[in-house]
């Protein structure tokens, strides 16, 4: 009888894991993983990459694809430049956000908005590898042979209203980010794939300032 129950429990757990992330199993020793991840992230001082963003609108069976270039420099500098099919530039530099869309330029201090602070931190955390210390999220970690999947589930209301989960896929080779997928409550999601990555290339500070 106990064997039957144990088998049933195993099937239920296996199915629920499979339903969460196909091809991934939960990381057994998360403490070890966090240590390895933190140590590897310490070695990443800069990232330069192309990206492909896919906005998936589930109800409309529609995808909007955009492309661009991405730069990250320790500690808190990010430049995201969309080049196709539109031009859009976003620079996060410590507590400031600079945005240029079309002919308009905007400078925003993240200190003026809690949501901007939180979103700013998500972006930085994802690329810097410090997501584990973000208390806005509950964190689950999964792995397969090549990659790890860090699932961030928001625990604070304003983020819970927007995101169901944010999944960050990292390469086991160097713990650099391969993909960020932001899943909305509605079932829509935005996925950003980082390709042609260069780790620790020399990046001038001027990249992260508004010209």
């Amino acid at each position, binding site marked *: 009888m106990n064997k039957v129950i144990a088998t049933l429990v195993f099937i239920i757990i296996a199915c629920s894991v499979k339903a969460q992330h196909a091809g991934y199993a939960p990381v057994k020793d998360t403490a070890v993983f966090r240590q390895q991840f933190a140590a590897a992230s310490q070695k990443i001082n800069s990232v330069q990459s192309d990206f492909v*963003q896919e906005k998936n609108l589930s109800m409309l069976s529609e995808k909007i694809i955009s492309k661009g270039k991405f730069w990250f420099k320790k500690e808190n500098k990010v430049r995201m430049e969309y080049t196709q099919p539109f031009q859009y530039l976003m620079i996060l530099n410590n507590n400031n956000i600079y945005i240029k869309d079309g002919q308009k330029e905007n400078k925003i201090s993240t200190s003026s908005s809690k949501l901007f602070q939180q979103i700013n931190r998500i972006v930085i955390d994802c690329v810097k590898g410090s997501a584990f210390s973000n208390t806005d999220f509950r964190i689950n970690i999964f792995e397969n042979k090549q990659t790890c999947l860090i699932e961030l589930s928001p625990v604070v209301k304003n983020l819970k209203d927007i995101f169901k989960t944010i999944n960050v896929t990292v390469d086991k080779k160097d713990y650099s980010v391969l993909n960020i997928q932001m899943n909305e409550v*509605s079932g829509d999601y935005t996925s950003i794939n980082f390709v042609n990555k260069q780790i620790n290339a020399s990046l001038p500070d001027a990249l992260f300032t508004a010209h």
Partner: protein
Amino acid sequence: MHCLPLISCMLVLTACSSSYKHLQRSKEDVSCIQKFKPDFTNALYYTEVNVVGKHLSGLLLIKLMPDSSTRMVFSNETGFKFFDFEFSKDGNFKVFYIIDQMNKKPVITTLRKDFEIIMMQPANMQHGYMSRNIDSGYNYYAFPQEKGFNYYITDSICNNLIRLERASSRKAVVEIEMKDYTNGRPDSIGITHTNFNFNIGLKQLKKL
């Protein structure tokens, strides 16, 4: 000094005069404007919105659904969704999603009416008639709405769409330009509200 009451009266009369007083009703058919109905089977526009000093930009996807309704989703460049509207063929309208900051009845009604005139939905194109502006020579194709009128203004031979106007009985409250049709839809659309600072600009994007 004695002129003051007279000037005041003239100002009041001028303010009350209709922008449409030079229109002369014609018996011509209104069907010729159907060729300007945009083909929104699947269209993507880069969109900039300026409203009372605030600026928003992003992507507006317009898609004809299998049930003949038209869905319109506006999200910013990084994928953050602002709104998701449905315009059904019979004139009904549904808000699937809108961010809290925009979730106000006047905002939603204004956007609904602005896009209804652009989409040239059959439900908003009933009981139309044509008038000619005796000053400009333009044709004014008028369609009565619950409040006011929708005007489609063309040249005298209905070959070029000059602009669209959403109007009260006296004056335009919204002016819309739809320019450079390619693949059956305007390459750019400009929406200007005349009574408050609210402008929307759309530029067609080639989907990747």
